[in-house]
């Protein structure tokens, strides 16, 4: 299958009684199969806007997204689990929507450190646990594209480090194409093999840097060079 391609000529946010805000301009990226790309830039630069367009959540933009895969696994900034459904049901529902047979719920939850929690409800979880559950839900659809929107934000350092290690391990196991949005260089270095450095708003591609995963020093040098 040809690689996913994102091409945004312009994305405006229109507000009544105020001039429109240009969030993204001339941003073109392709995402080769198996690559992990970090959209990296300062807070508010338009990373999440670009990601929402990539996922098909915002059709109001000039440009196009080509070859968007059918099965998308998403870890949103907020875990966004269905609060009236148990964790197991949260996984089963998205798998059913993807046309898959019953997912191995216990194994998926165990993979993210939530063994035995299938019958529990989202409000029983801490934020870190809920993010892990959201990751398990994303994996339940056997994603062709895994999308991670600032998955470590609002977590304490220890919890963020645990989750970062978990995501890194999952990405290494699955070899799934992934897109990560972050404003932390450490996260980009730990998880991604390509870093798309975006400008402040409106987001444009400043540079696309390829570095081995986990090479923070190399990434720093590449960005400085």
């Amino acid at each position: 299958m040809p690689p996913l391609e994102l091409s945004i000529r312009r994305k405006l946010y229109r507000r009544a009684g105020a001039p429109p805000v240009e969030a993204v301009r001339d941003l073109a990226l392709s995402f080769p199969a198996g690559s992990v790309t970090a959209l990296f830039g300062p807070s508010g630069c338009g990373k999440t806007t670009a990601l929402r367009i990539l996922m098909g959540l915002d059709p109001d933009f000039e440009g196009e997204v080509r070859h968007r895969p059918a099965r998308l696994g998403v870890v949103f900034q907020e875990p966004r689990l269905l609060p009236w459904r148990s964790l197991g049901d949260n996984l089963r529902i998205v798998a059913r929507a993807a046309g898959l047979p019953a997912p191995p719920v216990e194994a998926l939850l165990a993979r993210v450190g939530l063994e035995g929690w299938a019958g529990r409800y989202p409000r029983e979880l801490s934020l870190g646990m809920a993010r892990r559950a959201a990751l398990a839900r994303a994996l339940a659809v056997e994603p062709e594209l895994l999308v991670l929107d600032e998955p470590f934000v609002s977590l304490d350092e220890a919890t963020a480090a645990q989750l970062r290690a978990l995501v890194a391990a999952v990405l290494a196991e699955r070899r799934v194409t992934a897109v990560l949005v972050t404003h932390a260089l450490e996260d980009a270095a730990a998880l991604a093999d390509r870093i798309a450095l975006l400008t402040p708003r409106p987001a444009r591609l400043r540079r696309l840097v390829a570095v081995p995963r986990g090479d923070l020093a190399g990434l720093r040098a590449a960005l400085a060079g």
Partner: protein
Amino acid sequence: MRRLGLPGLRLASALLLLGLWWAAAAMAQDRALPGPLAVLAALRAELAAGALLPALAATLARVAAAFLLAMALGSALGYAMGRNGITDAALDPWVLLLLNIPALVIILLAYIWCGQTEAAAIGAVTLAKLPNVVVVVREGARALDPALDEVATAYRLTPWMRLREVVLPQLGPFLAAAARSGLAILWKIVLVVELLGRPSGVGFEMNMRFQLFDVPGLLAYSLAFAAVMLAIEGFVMQPAERRARAWRGAAA
């Protein structure tokens, strides 16, 4: 008081009401204010004559039909108006108009325009109840969490799954509120509809008792139907609402 507990307090309050009624009737000694025993005797007589149960059944059937129609139509319209600004702007004047027309006027006009038929009766009650359901469900639709909507879009939930798994659980408390408040109002409107133009039902029987100045019979029918509606409220509506909200208390 504390030793009684809340259920005991409720019972004591009900007994006090009964006692006051009995005392007032005993003091008045008037046909217009029969005591509880006279009403109970009238109830037993209507039951023995085979008139009470068919009347209750006829009224209950009308309540059920109008309730289901008003809930189905009102929920669909309220959802559409809450989700779509154009639909809301187009239909809001209609809803406002219906909200402000007295139920009695709707009933009279329905009988004048459509004749004193079953369809006119149920249609009038439905129309009288409809705007209330629309307004409550519209608020629910406006309060739907857009973040969960995005989850449904990202994971490509089918329209049916989106409705069942994402929309209805959020609308549940609003639907329950519309249903409970609706039922309480609706059965009283049904009695008026029957009183004005139906040949059966509790409202019709009450009109007959009114014509004959049979106050014990009038009270017997009204209290019997109120008891039926209280039972539906206690055994159907409240448990259904509790079930809809069960997930909120699911945390350990």
